[in-house]
Protein backbone atom coordinates (compact mmCIF):
# COMPACT_ATOMS: atom_id res chain seq x y z
CA UNK A 1 0.00 0.00 0.00
CA UNK A 2 1.31 3.45 -0.91
CA UNK A 3 0.13 6.67 0.76
CA UNK A 4 0.83 10.03 -0.86
CA UNK A 5 1.24 12.66 1.87
CA UNK A 6 3.26 15.01 -0.32
CA UNK A 7 0.53 17.67 -0.27
CA UNK A 8 0.64 17.91 3.52
CA UNK A 9 3.34 19.92 5.26
CA UNK A 10 4.62 19.27 8.78
CA UNK A 11 3.02 18.51 11.23
CA UNK A 12 -0.07 17.38 9.26
CA UNK A 13 2.16 14.94 7.36
CA UNK A 14 3.44 13.54 10.66
CA UNK A 15 -0.05 13.24 12.13
CA UNK A 16 -1.37 11.40 9.07
CA UNK A 17 1.70 9.15 8.90
CA UNK A 18 1.18 8.32 12.58
CA UNK A 19 -2.44 7.36 11.89
CA UNK A 20 -1.30 5.09 9.07
CA UNK A 21 1.36 3.43 11.22
CA UNK A 22 -1.08 2.97 14.10
CA UNK A 23 -3.45 1.17 11.72
CA UNK A 24 -0.89 -1.34 10.47
CA UNK A 25 -1.14 -4.99 11.36
CA UNK A 26 1.99 -6.78 12.56
CA UNK A 27 4.28 -7.54 9.60
CA UNK A 28 2.34 -5.26 7.25
CA UNK A 29 4.36 -2.94 4.99
CA UNK A 30 3.44 0.50 3.60
CA UNK A 31 5.19 3.14 1.54
CA UNK A 32 4.65 6.76 2.53
CA UNK A 33 5.49 9.60 0.16
CA UNK A 34 6.48 12.90 1.82
CA UNK A 35 6.94 16.21 0.03
CA UNK A 36 9.35 18.28 2.14
CA UNK A 37 12.44 17.81 4.32
CA UNK A 38 10.68 18.94 7.55
CA UNK A 39 8.02 16.28 7.06
CA UNK A 40 10.72 13.68 6.45
CA UNK A 41 12.55 14.76 9.60
CA UNK A 42 9.48 14.66 11.85
CA UNK A 43 8.17 11.33 10.52
CA UNK A 44 11.66 9.82 10.84
CA UNK A 45 11.81 11.02 14.46
CA UNK A 46 8.44 9.40 15.16
CA UNK A 47 9.59 6.11 13.63
CA UNK A 48 12.82 6.21 15.63
CA UNK A 49 10.85 6.76 18.83
CA UNK A 50 8.84 3.65 17.99
CA UNK A 51 11.94 1.62 17.18
CA UNK A 52 11.00 1.26 13.51
CA UNK A 53 13.79 1.50 10.94
CA UNK A 54 12.30 2.53 7.59
CA UNK A 55 13.61 2.02 4.08
CA UNK A 56 14.39 5.30 2.33
CA UNK A 57 14.30 6.46 -1.28
CA UNK A 58 14.42 9.94 -2.77
CA UNK A 59 12.40 10.77 -5.88
CA UNK A 60 13.61 14.05 -7.36
CA UNK A 61 14.66 16.98 -5.21
CA UNK A 62 11.99 16.95 -2.51
CA UNK A 63 9.97 13.76 -2.69
CA UNK A 64 10.89 11.17 -0.12
CA UNK A 65 9.57 7.63 0.17
CA UNK A 66 9.70 5.76 3.45
CA UNK A 67 9.03 2.04 3.42
CA UNK A 68 7.71 1.00 6.79
CA UNK A 69 7.11 -2.45 8.19
CA UNK A 70 5.52 -2.74 11.59
Amino acid at each position, binding site marked *: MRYDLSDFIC*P*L*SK*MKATEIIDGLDGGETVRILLGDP*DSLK*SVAQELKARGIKPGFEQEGESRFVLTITR
Partner: protein
Amino acid sequence: MWYTYSKTQVVNQDKEPDHKLKVYSNITQLIASPENPTPLVRLNGINPSKDFQIYLKLERYNPFGSVKDRIVSEMLKALEIGNRTVVEPSSGNTGIALACVANALGIPVEVAVPERIPEEKKIMLRFLGTKVTEADDALCPLFPTEGARGVVNALIKSPATRGGYISPNQYENELNVLAHYRMTGPEIWKQTQGKIDYFFAGFGTCGTITGVGRYLKEQNPEIKIIGVEPSSPNHKLPGMKRITGLDEEFIPTILDRSVIDDSVEVTDEDAYKTAIALARKDGIPVGPTTGAILHVALRYAESNKGLAVVISPDDAFKYTSFYKNILEVESKGTDYEI
Protein backbone atom coordinates in the same frame (compact mmCIF):
# COMPACT_ATOMS: atom_id res chain seq x y z
CA MET B 1 -44.94 41.13 17.82
CA TRP B 2 -44.17 43.31 20.85
CA TYR B 3 -43.13 42.02 24.21
CA THR B 4 -43.45 44.27 27.21
CA TYR B 5 -42.24 44.23 30.77
CA SER B 6 -44.25 46.50 33.04
CA LYS B 7 -44.65 49.81 31.19
CA THR B 8 -41.17 49.64 29.75
CA GLN B 9 -40.67 48.36 26.26
CA VAL B 10 -37.75 45.94 26.50
CA VAL B 11 -37.82 44.15 23.16
CA ASN B 12 -38.76 45.70 19.88
CA GLN B 13 -38.12 43.74 16.75
CA ASP B 14 -37.55 46.91 14.71
CA LYS B 15 -35.33 48.85 17.09
CA GLU B 16 -32.15 47.97 18.92
CA PRO B 17 -33.15 46.74 22.42
CA ASP B 18 -32.24 48.76 25.46
CA HIS B 19 -28.88 47.53 26.72
CA LYS B 20 -29.34 49.46 29.96
CA LEU B 21 -32.14 46.99 30.72
CA LYS B 22 -29.81 44.14 29.80
CA VAL B 23 -31.73 43.21 26.66
CA TYR B 24 -29.71 42.31 23.60
CA SER B 25 -30.44 41.28 20.05
CA ASN B 26 -27.63 38.70 20.02
CA ILE B 27 -25.11 37.23 22.45
CA THR B 28 -22.08 39.06 21.01
CA GLN B 29 -23.52 42.37 22.21
CA LEU B 30 -22.68 41.29 25.76
CA ILE B 31 -18.96 41.48 25.03
CA ALA B 32 -17.46 44.14 27.28
CA SER B 33 -16.91 47.71 26.13
CA PRO B 34 -16.39 51.07 27.87
CA GLU B 35 -20.20 51.33 28.03
CA ASN B 36 -20.52 47.80 29.41
CA PRO B 37 -17.23 47.16 31.24
CA THR B 38 -16.19 44.02 33.04
CA PRO B 39 -16.09 44.58 36.83
CA LEU B 40 -13.12 45.96 38.71
CA VAL B 41 -13.03 44.53 42.24
CA ARG B 42 -10.73 45.64 45.08
CA LEU B 43 -8.91 42.88 46.93
CA ASN B 44 -9.30 43.26 50.69
CA GLY B 45 -8.29 39.86 52.02
CA ILE B 46 -5.23 38.63 50.16
CA ASN B 47 -3.57 42.03 49.96
CA PRO B 48 -2.51 43.32 53.39
CA SER B 49 -1.10 46.59 52.04
CA LYS B 50 -3.03 49.81 52.62
CA ASP B 51 -0.63 51.76 50.43
CA PHE B 52 -0.84 49.55 47.36
CA GLN B 53 -4.45 48.87 46.46
CA ILE B 54 -5.02 46.06 44.00
CA TYR B 55 -8.10 45.78 41.80
CA LEU B 56 -8.88 42.69 39.74
CA LYS B 57 -10.36 43.23 36.27
CA LEU B 58 -12.70 40.24 36.06
CA GLU B 59 -12.79 39.22 32.42
CA ARG B 60 -14.82 36.11 33.25
CA TYR B 61 -17.86 38.41 33.06
CA ASN B 62 -17.61 38.46 29.28
CA PRO B 63 -20.37 36.30 27.74
CA PHE B 64 -18.14 33.34 26.86
CA GLY B 65 -16.14 33.52 30.05
CA SER B 66 -12.80 35.11 29.28
CA VAL B 67 -10.77 38.06 28.08
CA LYS B 68 -10.59 36.42 24.64
CA ASP B 69 -14.21 37.25 23.91
CA ARG B 70 -13.09 40.81 23.20
CA ILE B 71 -10.64 39.96 20.43
CA VAL B 72 -12.54 37.18 18.70
CA SER B 73 -15.47 39.30 17.67
CA GLU B 74 -13.14 41.98 16.28
CA MET B 75 -10.99 39.50 14.38
CA LEU B 76 -13.92 37.55 12.90
CA LYS B 77 -15.64 40.69 11.68
CA ALA B 78 -12.56 41.61 9.68
CA LEU B 79 -12.03 38.18 8.05
CA GLU B 80 -13.21 37.51 4.51
CA ILE B 81 -14.24 33.95 5.28
CA GLY B 82 -16.26 32.96 2.22
CA ASN B 83 -16.85 29.22 2.25
CA ARG B 84 -13.77 28.48 4.31
CA THR B 85 -13.52 27.04 7.80
CA VAL B 86 -12.04 29.27 10.48
CA VAL B 87 -9.15 27.58 12.27
CA GLU B 88 -7.08 28.85 15.19
CA PRO B 89 -4.53 27.54 17.69
CA SER B 90 -5.72 28.11 21.23
CA SER B 91 -5.10 27.06 24.81
CA GLY B 92 -8.88 27.08 25.14
CA ASN B 93 -10.25 30.53 25.82
CA THR B 94 -9.86 31.90 22.30
CA GLY B 95 -11.22 28.62 20.94
CA ILE B 96 -14.30 28.76 23.15
CA ALA B 97 -14.97 32.41 22.29
CA LEU B 98 -14.38 31.71 18.62
CA ALA B 99 -16.74 28.75 18.66
CA CYS B 100 -19.49 30.73 20.37
CA VAL B 101 -19.24 33.76 18.10
CA ALA B 102 -18.90 31.59 15.00
CA ASN B 103 -21.90 29.49 16.03
CA ALA B 104 -23.94 32.68 16.44
CA LEU B 105 -22.87 33.73 12.94
CA GLY B 106 -23.16 30.26 11.34
CA ILE B 107 -19.45 29.94 10.56
CA PRO B 108 -17.67 26.55 10.78
CA VAL B 109 -14.72 26.46 13.20
CA GLU B 110 -11.86 24.11 14.02
CA VAL B 111 -9.45 24.61 16.90
CA ALA B 112 -6.00 23.15 17.51
CA VAL B 113 -5.13 22.89 21.20
CA PRO B 114 -2.06 21.78 23.14
CA GLU B 115 -2.57 18.31 24.63
CA ARG B 116 -1.72 19.66 28.09
CA ILE B 117 -4.70 22.03 28.48
CA PRO B 118 -7.41 21.01 30.97
CA GLU B 119 -9.97 18.42 29.85
CA GLU B 120 -12.72 20.87 30.81
CA LYS B 121 -11.72 23.17 27.96
CA LYS B 122 -11.57 20.34 25.43
CA ILE B 123 -15.01 19.19 26.52
CA MET B 124 -16.40 22.72 26.21
CA LEU B 125 -15.07 23.00 22.67
CA ARG B 126 -16.67 19.69 21.68
CA PHE B 127 -19.86 20.70 23.48
CA LEU B 128 -19.92 23.71 21.16
CA GLY B 129 -19.62 21.44 18.13
CA THR B 130 -16.04 22.41 17.31
CA LYS B 131 -13.62 19.98 15.72
CA VAL B 132 -10.69 19.82 18.12
CA THR B 133 -7.19 18.71 17.13
CA GLU B 134 -4.92 17.99 20.06
CA ALA B 135 -1.27 18.64 19.39
CA ASP B 136 1.78 17.72 21.38
CA ASP B 137 3.98 20.78 21.94
CA ALA B 138 6.93 19.01 20.32
CA LEU B 139 4.91 17.86 17.30
CA CYS B 140 6.59 19.99 14.70
CA PRO B 141 10.22 21.13 14.28
CA LEU B 142 8.94 24.28 12.57
CA PHE B 143 7.14 25.28 15.80
CA PRO B 144 9.32 23.50 18.38
CA THR B 145 7.30 24.39 21.48
CA GLU B 146 3.88 25.04 20.00
CA GLY B 147 2.45 22.10 18.09
CA ALA B 148 -1.02 23.66 17.89
CA ARG B 149 0.34 26.66 16.01
CA GLY B 150 2.12 24.23 13.72
CA VAL B 151 -1.10 22.37 12.95
CA VAL B 152 -2.90 25.56 11.97
CA ASN B 153 0.06 26.75 9.92
CA ALA B 154 0.02 23.42 8.06
CA LEU B 155 -3.75 23.58 7.42
CA ILE B 156 -3.37 27.08 5.98
CA LYS B 157 -0.30 26.29 3.86
CA SER B 158 -0.56 22.62 2.81
CA PRO B 159 -1.53 22.24 -0.87
CA ALA B 160 -4.12 19.63 0.16
CA THR B 161 -5.99 21.91 2.58
CA ARG B 162 -5.03 25.53 2.04
CA GLY B 163 -8.11 26.63 0.10
CA GLY B 164 -10.44 25.41 2.81
CA TYR B 165 -9.16 27.28 5.85
CA ILE B 166 -8.61 30.78 7.11
CA SER B 167 -7.12 31.81 10.46
CA PRO B 168 -7.60 34.99 12.50
CA ASN B 169 -4.04 34.36 13.77
CA GLN B 170 -4.23 36.06 17.14
CA TYR B 171 -0.43 36.07 17.47
CA GLU B 172 0.01 38.41 14.51
CA ASN B 173 -3.37 40.12 14.22
CA GLU B 174 -3.24 43.80 15.17
CA LEU B 175 -6.98 43.63 15.91
CA ASN B 176 -5.98 41.61 18.97
CA VAL B 177 -4.12 44.70 20.21
CA LEU B 178 -6.73 47.14 18.94
CA ALA B 179 -9.58 45.44 20.83
CA HIS B 180 -7.73 46.10 24.08
CA TYR B 181 -6.60 49.56 23.03
CA ARG B 182 -10.17 50.56 22.19
CA MET B 183 -12.01 48.68 24.95
CA THR B 184 -10.04 47.27 27.91
CA GLY B 185 -7.66 50.21 28.26
CA PRO B 186 -10.36 52.91 28.21
CA GLU B 187 -12.50 50.84 30.61
CA ILE B 188 -9.67 50.68 33.15
CA TRP B 189 -8.85 54.36 32.77
CA LYS B 190 -12.50 55.31 33.28
CA GLN B 191 -13.11 52.85 36.15
CA THR B 192 -10.08 54.09 38.08
CA GLN B 193 -10.85 57.72 37.21
CA GLY B 194 -7.35 58.01 35.83
CA LYS B 195 -5.76 57.13 39.17
CA ILE B 196 -4.14 53.87 38.07
CA ASP B 197 -0.40 53.63 38.76
CA TYR B 198 0.34 49.99 37.80
CA PHE B 199 -1.12 47.55 35.29
CA PHE B 200 -0.26 43.85 35.51
CA ALA B 201 -0.90 41.33 32.70
CA GLY B 202 0.55 38.08 31.45
CA PHE B 203 2.51 37.42 28.28
CA GLY B 204 0.53 35.15 25.96
CA THR B 205 -0.43 36.36 22.54
CA CYS B 206 0.57 39.73 24.05
CA GLY B 207 -2.54 41.51 22.76
CA THR B 208 -3.76 42.54 26.22
CA ILE B 209 -0.49 43.90 27.56
CA THR B 210 0.32 45.72 24.34
CA GLY B 211 -3.14 47.19 23.74
CA VAL B 212 -3.92 48.19 27.33
CA GLY B 213 -0.33 49.27 27.98
CA ARG B 214 -0.26 51.48 24.90
CA TYR B 215 -3.57 53.14 25.80
CA LEU B 216 -2.66 53.75 29.43
CA LYS B 217 0.81 55.09 28.56
CA GLU B 218 -0.82 57.57 26.19
CA GLN B 219 -3.04 58.82 29.03
CA ASN B 220 -0.22 58.96 31.56
CA PRO B 221 3.33 57.87 30.67
CA GLU B 222 4.08 57.41 34.38
CA ILE B 223 1.82 54.34 34.64
CA LYS B 224 3.96 51.22 35.02
CA ILE B 225 3.11 48.25 32.82
CA ILE B 226 4.29 44.94 34.30
CA GLY B 227 4.40 41.73 32.26
CA VAL B 228 4.29 38.29 33.86
CA GLU B 229 5.71 35.13 32.35
CA PRO B 230 6.10 31.51 33.47
CA SER B 231 9.49 30.70 34.97
CA SER B 232 9.76 27.58 32.78
CA PRO B 233 8.80 26.84 29.17
CA ASN B 234 7.16 23.63 30.42
CA HIS B 235 4.57 25.27 32.60
CA LYS B 236 0.96 24.60 33.56
CA LEU B 237 -0.37 28.08 32.96
CA PRO B 238 -2.52 27.71 29.81
CA GLY B 239 -2.53 30.86 27.73
CA MET B 240 0.75 32.17 29.09
CA LYS B 241 4.01 32.15 27.20
CA ARG B 242 7.58 32.36 28.39
CA ILE B 243 9.08 35.12 26.25
CA THR B 244 12.56 35.08 27.77
CA GLY B 245 14.87 32.86 25.78
CA LEU B 246 12.36 32.34 22.98
CA ASP B 247 13.68 32.61 19.43
CA GLU B 248 12.61 35.95 17.99
CA GLU B 249 10.60 34.23 15.24
CA PHE B 250 8.30 32.62 17.84
CA ILE B 251 7.62 35.79 19.82
CA PRO B 252 4.19 37.20 18.88
CA THR B 253 4.75 39.96 16.34
CA ILE B 254 2.08 42.10 18.03
CA LEU B 255 4.14 42.44 21.23
CA ASP B 256 5.29 46.03 21.70
CA ARG B 257 8.08 45.92 24.25
CA SER B 258 8.27 49.71 24.41
CA VAL B 259 5.16 49.87 26.60
CA ILE B 260 6.48 47.36 29.15
CA ASP B 261 8.42 48.61 32.17
CA ASP B 262 9.23 45.30 33.84
CA SER B 263 8.74 41.58 33.28
CA VAL B 264 8.66 39.11 36.13
CA GLU B 265 8.78 35.31 36.26
CA VAL B 266 6.38 33.16 38.26
CA THR B 267 6.47 29.46 39.09
CA ASP B 268 3.44 27.21 38.62
CA GLU B 269 3.39 26.58 42.34
CA ASP B 270 3.22 30.28 43.24
CA ALA B 271 0.53 30.86 40.60
CA TYR B 272 -1.72 28.03 41.82
CA LYS B 273 -1.19 28.84 45.49
CA THR B 274 -2.08 32.48 44.89
CA ALA B 275 -5.23 31.54 42.97
CA ILE B 276 -6.34 29.24 45.78
CA ALA B 277 -5.53 31.86 48.43
CA LEU B 278 -7.55 34.45 46.50
CA ALA B 279 -10.57 32.17 46.45
CA ARG B 280 -10.29 31.62 50.18
CA LYS B 281 -9.49 35.16 51.29
CA ASP B 282 -11.53 37.26 48.85
CA GLY B 283 -14.06 34.73 47.56
CA ILE B 284 -13.04 35.12 43.91
CA PRO B 285 -12.49 31.86 41.97
CA VAL B 286 -9.98 32.53 39.20
CA GLY B 287 -7.85 30.54 36.77
CA PRO B 288 -4.15 29.91 37.44
CA THR B 289 -3.00 32.66 35.07
CA THR B 290 -4.74 35.19 37.31
CA GLY B 291 -2.90 33.60 40.21
CA ALA B 292 0.39 34.11 38.38
CA ILE B 293 -0.26 37.76 37.58
CA LEU B 294 -1.63 38.52 41.03
CA HIS B 295 1.37 36.88 42.68
CA VAL B 296 3.61 39.47 41.02
CA ALA B 297 1.29 42.33 42.01
CA LEU B 298 1.42 41.14 45.63
CA ARG B 299 5.21 41.18 45.49
CA TYR B 300 5.06 44.77 44.25
CA ALA B 301 2.69 45.59 47.12
CA GLU B 302 5.44 44.79 49.59
CA SER B 303 7.58 47.75 48.57
CA ASN B 304 5.51 50.15 46.45
CA LYS B 305 2.61 52.57 46.77
CA GLY B 306 -0.25 53.28 44.41
CA LEU B 307 -3.28 51.82 42.68
CA ALA B 308 -2.82 48.64 40.66
CA VAL B 309 -5.07 46.84 38.21
CA VAL B 310 -4.48 43.13 37.61
CA ILE B 311 -6.08 41.52 34.60
CA SER B 312 -7.93 38.31 35.47
CA PRO B 313 -8.32 36.46 32.17
CA ASP B 314 -10.84 33.83 33.28
CA ASP B 315 -12.35 31.81 36.14
CA ALA B 316 -11.48 28.67 38.11
CA PHE B 317 -14.18 26.41 36.72
CA LYS B 318 -12.27 25.43 33.57
CA TYR B 319 -9.30 24.29 35.65
CA THR B 320 -10.83 22.12 38.35
CA SER B 321 -8.90 19.06 37.14
CA PHE B 322 -5.66 21.03 37.50
CA TYR B 323 -6.57 22.32 40.97
CA LYS B 324 -7.61 18.82 42.00
CA ASN B 325 -4.01 17.61 42.17
CA ILE B 326 -2.94 20.49 44.39
CA LEU B 327 -5.94 20.07 46.66
CA GLU B 328 -5.13 16.39 47.05
CA VAL B 329 -1.61 17.28 48.18
CA GLU B 330 -3.06 19.86 50.54
CA SER B 331 -5.45 17.33 52.06
CA LYS B 332 -2.41 15.30 53.01
CA GLY B 333 -1.16 18.16 55.18
CA THR B 334 0.73 20.59 52.98
CA ASP B 335 0.50 24.19 54.15
CA TYR B 336 -0.72 26.49 51.40
CA GLU B 337 -0.36 29.82 53.16
CA ILE B 338 1.44 32.29 50.90
